[in-house]
Structures are given as C-alpha cells and as structure tokens.
C-alpha cells in the first residue's frame, strides 16, 4: 500500500502429501498472470524508444508479415485484438517450440485465424487440462458405467 508492504503471508503445503510447507518464497505456475510481467517487459522497451505499440511488427521482424500479418502491431497482440486468439493455423510439435529459430520460423509462417481487430483473449489451444479431465469424466461415466 503506497509502496509499503503491509501483508505478506503464505500457508498450506507445496505437495499433496502435505510434507513441504508452502511459504512466501515458494513459486508455482501462475498461468495467465504471467501477462503482467510480460506486458511490463514490453513497456520497458517502449519506454526506451526501442519499440512502439502501433508500429507493425514486421518493422522489427520482417518475416512476421507472411500471410496477411503485415499490419499487426504489438499493441494488437497485447490488447487481445491481433486475431491470433488461441490458435495456430497448423499444430506445431514440441521440438519446434523448444528451439528459438524453429519456433520463430513457425510463428512467422502462421496465418492468424481471425481478422485483425477481432477482440479475443489470447487464451487457449488444443491440449488437455483440468477441463479435459471433465470431458474425460463425462466420457468415463457415460461409457464405462
């Protein structure tokens, strides 16, 4: 509050066996809360005059302009209106995503599936998660029982 920490607490356990206490230094996945530091990182570059929110990304990364992405800006991406939302045109494999060069090549080659300006959270993709588990449970209880 006003720059002063007034409360800093943690409780519970790190593990489901409840053997390792969870304290204020424990870290875990924060999922989309990572957008906060992501955006601030971009703000640092904008503040230094190294990037502008309304400059097309192709000015910094020419290959990005492929398949109609020439006018898309970093501002579009951050404010959830680039048209990318949750999807790639093609599904990448993990090896592609693990290598900076291959990943960039793949990213540049992708068409965004929705028109620029479409408001849509950058939020989901194929995969399986706790929501998947719900489907699994539906499947399980409707086919096994």
């Amino acid at each position, binding site marked *: 509050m006003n720059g002063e920490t007034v409360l800093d607490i943690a409780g519970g356990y790190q593990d489901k066996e409840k053997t390792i206490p969870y304290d204020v230094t424990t870290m875990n996945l*924060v999922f989309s809360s990572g957008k906060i530091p992501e955006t601030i990182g971009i703000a640092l570059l904008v503040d230094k005059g190294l990037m502008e929110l309304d400059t097309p990304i192709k000015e910094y990364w020419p290959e990005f302009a492929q398949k109609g992405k020439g006018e898309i800006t970093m501002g579009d991406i951050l404010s*959830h209106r680039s048209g990318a939302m949750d999807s790639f045109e093609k599904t990448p494999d993990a090896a592609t995503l693990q290598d*900076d060069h291959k990943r960039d090549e793949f990213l540049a080659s992708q068409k965004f599936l929705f028109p620029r300006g479409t408001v849509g959270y950058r939020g989901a993709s*194929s995969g399986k998660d706790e929501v998947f*588990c719900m489907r699994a*449970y539906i*499947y399980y209880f409707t086919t096994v029982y």
Partner: protein
Amino acid sequence: MKFFVCEHTFIILPRCIDLSPCRCPYIPAFYTDAVVRRVDPLKRSLLQLVQEELFDTVGQSIFCPPISSHDWEGRMSKVHDIPLSKMMLGLLPQLYLSNFYRSVLGEDHPLVLSDSEVNLYRNWILKVDPNSPLVKPGLPDMDQGEASWNNRSSWLSYPMMSANCLTNARGTGHVFDAFMRGKVVSDDTLALFLKPVGTHEFDNFLSNNVTYSAGGFGIGGAGKEGPLFLGIFKQPVGAECTGWGGIGGSTIMHCLVGAHNVTLSYVPNLLSPRVALDRGMKLLSEAVGILLEE
C-alpha cells in the same frame, strides 16, 4: 481431500486419450518473446529481460521452462488439479443445470459458476458454438508426446511468459506495484499502457464483455459493468482496479482506493473450477472493501 490430477486420469482412463481435441489454457505468447529478442539491444529473451530489469530490482524471481525434475526439489510447487468431488458435484452439472444450482445454493455460493464461466465452459467442453474460437486447432495434445500443460514435462519444456512461468505473489506483487506507481517506466509510457482500448467489448474467446487497456490489463468496473475478471471480482464502488489473473486463481491487481495505491497479489497452487479462484477473489475484494471503509 483427495487430489485427482490429470496424470492419474490418463492412467486410469487411457481411452480418453482418443477423445476429440480438448482444451488447455495457453497463450500464444511466443510472439512477444520473438519480438523482444529482435528489439532488445542485448538480444535477451523476454524472460531474461523481465528477470534482470524487473524481478532482480525487487529481489524476486520468475522462472520459465524448460523445467527439470531437479528444479521441483527446491522451492517450486506443482499446481494441483481440481479435486474430483468438486469437479463431479460442483462443476459439471452446472453446464446443464446452472439455474438449478443457483436457486438451491444461492448466487454467492463459491461453487456456483457465473454466467460467463458457464458460457465459457459450454463452448470449451461441450462445443455448443461451432464458430467459437475455442473449437479451432492450436498446440498438439500432450498425449502425442508433444506439448501439454500443468505439471507435465512436455508443457514445461518451452518458455511462454504469459502461460507457463513460475513465480509467487510476492514477486508479481512487487513488480506490478512498482510499475503502477511509475517506478519502472515514465508517466507517459505508463499512461499509454493503461489507456482503455474500447469499453465493455465482447470478447469472442471469453464470451464476456471486457475492458482491456492498451497493455492488455483488465480494467475494472462496479457491479456487472466492465468486470475485471469475468464477473467474479466485483469492484467495490469507490475503487478503480486494474490487473489480470490466471486460470485457477492467481490474481494481480492494483487499485486506487481514495488517495491510496494498493496492489494485491494472490497465487494458489490448487486449481479451482472458477476461472478466477473464488477464495482469492473474495479475499482481495474484501481487502479493498475494508480499505474503502477506513
């Protein structure tokens, strides 16, 4: 309470691997990292930039994949999935019987999903709207030995700042607090990133009206007007809040409460059916309410 995690599910229910594509929370955050590596004079990754220029300055850490098994032995906690009982009794039926649940339990019950969450999950799980972005393809499914999420090694094998990085409430809170109080960038840059882009616009992915800032933060509103997080966090009248959260409940927000700058950060390691964890949201909302009263 027994935790029932996805990994166990796959062991118990191997046939579910063959189901049609399901969904995982994932943000195509790769683009920001790719641009940062080209723009930063030191050619740092987004993670390096953020760690060195943000988290280091407040004495905190952020960690992005790849994550080895050794890393888990330290101060990193795995995220635990929604308990089976909560899933079966508290969530799935609401996709069909949301009004019944509300009438029995009351709208404020922690298990009762908001309209936005019901819409989101119905599109996500039941695919009721074939035009929804939620039915489009994306990352490979984890069970093909490729990408995945949560605690799986394949999901945690490549860095996505806004999807699969690890930190804590203290770190995110300090960083966001410094940013919002103008300690990180100039006032002009701060204003640029906080400027609203549209008002109460319909988000095609979230199936909800959201007000985003130019930097992508959610901008709050009182009651049902422009809720910060899908109608869960009801911004108290008199406060102005900005922030965002992650599925399952992590939440970081900054509120102007009268003349006071208040930053609140909450990180759980147990997922919830709620898009934003009911418990965390209640805590943060009540904290703001108490400050308003005082």
